[in-house]
């Protein structure tokens, strides 16, 4: 477990390095400022899911050296998704077709101080997959159908309904010209795993600075133990589940007999 965590931190460290390298590539040439152009952090890097978890909010805050535009992107772990479309056959609404995708983030949030297209040019947003329109899902199995875009849009629509995807264009509060903060909200249905918060500082259509910081969402205590048990010893877990049910039913029956 510790080794895995260490590995995750290492990987995230690399990701930060990559983003930073990108920032330097994109940064305008000239004398580098004495202070870092962008400093940010999260109020917490670990969300522990316990039995009373109903979703949570995190505070992301930071400072910039000179005025500019801020985009915050939070990405959750990716997984497969199957989209089914219902159609009308003989008066009944039945499943007509299904399309499978890979690389679908379980959580995705974009927060900025202005509409994205006013901050950065389209190719840049596309390349960094900023904005739900620019998310790239990989189609699984055979030739992509001509109406794949409809299925892709359906994923985003559904995720927005569930509160798992989120786009807000006027949600960064500036406290004076240099300090900013924003709230990120996570519903109780957030998938567990390693998240990444990316913060971009943009001036004149260019990324001046970027930061990437990890965020871990994990089950904790009894929730974690139950989940691990169900995955590591599924046969024993099933037997325990059946046994618990039999005992509870039996106990209730006896309790009621005595009355």
């Amino acid at each position, binding site marked *: 477990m510790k080794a895995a965590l260490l590995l995750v931190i290492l990987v995230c460290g690399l990701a930060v390095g990559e983003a930073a390298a990108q920032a330097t590539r994109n940064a305008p040439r000239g004398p580098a400022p004495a202070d870092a152009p962008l400093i940010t952090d999260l109020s917490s890097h670990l969300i522990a*899911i*316990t*039995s*009373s*978890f*109903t*979703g949570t909010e995190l505070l992301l805050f930071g400072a910039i050296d000179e005025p500019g535009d801020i985009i915050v992107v939070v990405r959750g772990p990716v*997984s*497969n*998704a*199957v*989209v*089914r*479309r*219902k*159609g*009308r056959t003989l*008066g*009944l*609404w*039945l*499943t007509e077709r*299904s399309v499978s995708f890979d690389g679908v983030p379980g959580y995705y949030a974009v927060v900025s101080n202005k509409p994205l297209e006013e901050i950065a040019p389209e190719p840049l947003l596309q390349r960094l997959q900023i904005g739900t329109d620019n998310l790239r899902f990989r189609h699984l*199995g055979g030739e992509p159908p001509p109406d794949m875009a*409809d299925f892709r849009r*359906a*994923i985003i*629509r*559904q*995720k927005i309904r569930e509160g798992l995807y989120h786009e807000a264009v006027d949600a960064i509060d500036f406290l004076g010209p240099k300090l900013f903060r924003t709230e990120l909200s996570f519903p*109780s*249905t957030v*998938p*567990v795993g390693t998240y990444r918060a990316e913060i971009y500082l943009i001036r004149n259509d260019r990324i001046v600075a970027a930061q990437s910081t990890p965020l871990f969402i994990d*089950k904790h205590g*009894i*929730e*974690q133990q*139950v*989940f691990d048990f*169900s*995955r590591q010893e*599924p*046969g024993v*877990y*099933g037997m325990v*589940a*059946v046994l*618990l*049910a*039999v005992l*509870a*039913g*039996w*106990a*209730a*029956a*006896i309790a*009621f*007999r005595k009355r």
Partner: protein
Amino acid sequence: MPIYLPIAELSVNLWLLLGLGGAVGYLSGLFGVGGGFLLTPLLIFIGIPPPVAVATSANQVVASSVSAVYAHWRKNNVDFKMGLVLLVGGLLGSSFGAYLFSVLKRLGQLDTVIALSYVLILGIIGTMMMAESLKALFGKPNAAQPVGRRKRLHDHPLIRALPFKMRFRRSQLYISVLLPVMLGFVVGILAAIMGVGAGFMLVPAMIYLLGMPTAVVVGTSLFQIIFVTANVTMLHAVTTQTVDVTLALILLIGSVIGAQYGVRHGARLRGEQIRGLLAALVLTVAIALAFELVWPPADPYFLETGMQP
């Protein structure tokens, strides 16, 4: 009070779950049905992912059935011999059903088959039971009785001619063992495909096809449902890993208590009253599911994440 479910991976109100378990347990004790056909759609309705809803319902039905069987057993209303014979057919049928399940899944028509079989089977059984119990309740007792009896299938000469006869003392029957085995087999297939204990199909079949007394039918059906749902729970725990023990425990706390009240109130009702009420319940579910098939959905696209494509 919210509680986080570790396998379903979301938080739900604790009192809502306890109430849901209690209501389904009550009906289960009253009618001798496991209640899976009610619990699964209700869990999906409150936002539990469908695979978790199916597997966890099976687990909690084990508990409510044990609780109710105990009460029926004390009233001497369980025909264990009949239950075991049904179970033999049931285990064979559910294995075959599991195979059919995978074939249909490969053909991509599983959803359609499940939706249609729910509506058709619930609709047919509900209509038949409703017609019969209305006749018994409101028909002229002297004139209707002989006609109704002759129409019952278990009196048909072909069925009486079947070999391997066995005496079922508690049910006061001397019938071919092939009948309950075949019945268990067919119900087992449907149980595996529809993901329920299928008590709502078993109860009317035992009355009309086997000719068992209604009082014994309820306890006996519950007795065999214990084993069928235990088997389904195990299969899901190993293959789909979608049994949520936390969810099942909360549901069963409500349902084992509800089941006791159900059995008590059931003892005060007449056989045809129980059958009439069950018929009304089955028809309501059938109509609700049919409505879903016919009414245009708000969004024709449905999303499943984390699934194997």
